[in-house]
């Protein structure tokens, strides 16, 4: 298993290096300790847009927004700008059925939360991937 992990990491790294030169990508990351290895695009949408707060292994998911990267991330995820995303959440405030992800101000805050919480999901610039974080899904940004 460590061989496989290492190989995967190496592959990911290689892909990331290649893609960095081509375009800026955003990676959805999770604690290395999480049993979840992969996340589909739909699952990412459901979690971040508040439909289901569950990971594929049925554990509770805790999505985290990062202020500097937020606009790029939602554009890459659901092709919507921030006004639309804010309007979406504003509608749901009164029903209380769903709530927006936890808000953070810096990349360090995200890394801190993710490394200390196995169920936390964050997103980072794929070119600046911090260590000890597992990439579940890489979202390519439109040029």
């Amino acid at each position: 298993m460590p061989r496989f992990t290492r190989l995967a990491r190496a592959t990911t790294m290689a892909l990331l290096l290649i893609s960095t030169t081509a375009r800026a990508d955003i990676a959805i990351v999770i604690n290395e300790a999480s049993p979840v290895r992969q996340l589909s695009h739909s699952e990412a949408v459901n979690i971040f847009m508040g439909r289901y707060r569950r990971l594929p292994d049925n554990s509770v998911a805790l999505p985290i927004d990062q202020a500097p990267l937020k606009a790029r991330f939602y554009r890459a995820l659901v092709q919507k700008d921030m006004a639309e995303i804010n309007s979406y959440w504003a509608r749901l405030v009164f029903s209380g059925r769903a709530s927006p992800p936890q808000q953070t101000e810096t990349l360090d805050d995200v890394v801190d939360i993710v490394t200390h919480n196995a169920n936390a999901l964050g997103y980072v610039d794929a070119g600046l991937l911090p260590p000890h974080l597992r990439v579940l899904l890489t979202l390519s940004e439109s040029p």
Partner: protein
Amino acid sequence: MIQLLGLLRSRLALRAAASILAIVGVLGIVFLVAAVHLRAASEKDIQQMRLEGLISTVERTAQIACFLGDSQLADEVTQGLLSNRIVKEARLVRRDGSALADHTNTNTNTNTNTNTNEHSSGVALTRTIKSPFETDKTVCELTLVPDQEWIDSMVNEATRFLSVALILQLLGIGLSVILVVFYFVTRPISDISQKLHALEAETGQKLPAPSGHGRDEIGKLVISVNAMIDRLVSSLSEERRQRLARDIEQRRYRTLFDNVEAGIFELDDQGHLLSANPAFCRLFLGGKPFDREGPPIALTTLIHDGGPTMQELTTRRARRDGTRQWEMAVGEGDQQRWVNVMVSRLEEGRLQGVAHDITERRHAAEAAERLAVTDPLTGIGNRLGFERRLELIQRHYRLHPDSRHALMMLDFDHFKQINDRHGHHAGDQVLEQIAGLMRDISRQHDYPARLGGDEFVLLLDHRTPRDDLDGMAQRLTDSINAPLVLDSGQQVSLGVSIGIAVLGSDASEVTTLVQLADLAMYRAKREGRNTWRFHDRHHPFET
């Protein structure tokens, strides 16, 4: 209803308004029906568009509600849709068929719902709701059922409004037409009618045009009526003038007709009298006035002698001919009048006649005629009369060859001696007495005449038998042989020799008859005088 019909017949304005109302009403109903139909057809599309619009309005919210499975938000959406009256039912259904939100409008009237249930809901509109983030994923279906009843009621209301508007418009038009027609047409016409009634056209009065209508059709009508009145009045006065002239003419003719001496009459084609003037009545009817209504009088029955027969009077040819004339005797005896009648054709089946009393003229002519054939000394026929009589006898003999006219020729013995002895006056007296004797012996149709001097003849009736001739001759001889007494008291005696010849037996020509009688007379003289001899063919020409 009948009263209304009568009113319509007698009121132009009402009739015009009713006609226009009927036309506008029919057109209006046609338009209204067409509009309602078109409206109903387009209503479905309009509702469809409105529903689509409604869905588009709430689509984003519905997307989110479905995406999150947020029934509270879904309720908001459906309730919001139902707040629109055209929506009867709004449903949000998940992909697995379970309803996220389902609301029915409860505001609809329950009492109308029961009987119009099948018509109350229209065609449902269904729209798939996509995920707000992944447009290829369907999350829900939104179904809207329109409230057809409400829509219908809206349409009906619009239709009612249109109808009411139309009816009001019709009433307005009708009233306007009545007013306009009354003001511009009916009132001026009844005005003209009344004035026309009161107009005294004979005085040259003219019909005034109603004010404000001088130049329009009503004004022209008045002008035409005035022109007609002018024409009528002028032709009436012309007629009156002519009638007056005709009356005078007629009176003139009437006076002539009544007072003229000549009888004037008219006959129909059957020869019956149609009219007669007083002179005609005096001539033909004995002074009785002609009765037009009485039994028909044929002209021919009034004539005693000499007039035309009915056929002569009335045949087609006779009628076509010009004036024809007859002389006829009317009445008998002393009352007999002679009338000259001229008849001419007046027109088909009508003859006009003029009758003149010519009795005096005729009597005068007859007297002259008598004088011409009478011996002035003796009053019996003279030579001219004898010759005329011979011509008559000749004609009669040619017509009736079996007739026997006998001629006696007398010659007196020694008459010359009486003249010589007693004078001419005595001779004349003797001649007069001989004539008297001959007249006494003569029967009605015998004709005594003195041809001149002492030459006497006696033409006897053709019916006298030969045996009677001897008797006649004997009586003649005897009466002449008797002594004649002159004025002077002297008596004279005469002998007479008589020659007798008979037309038909002895001769067929009167000239021969005279010669034969003459010869027979000379024979009598030769054979002893104072005797008579018949013509004897055995002694024809003795000298």
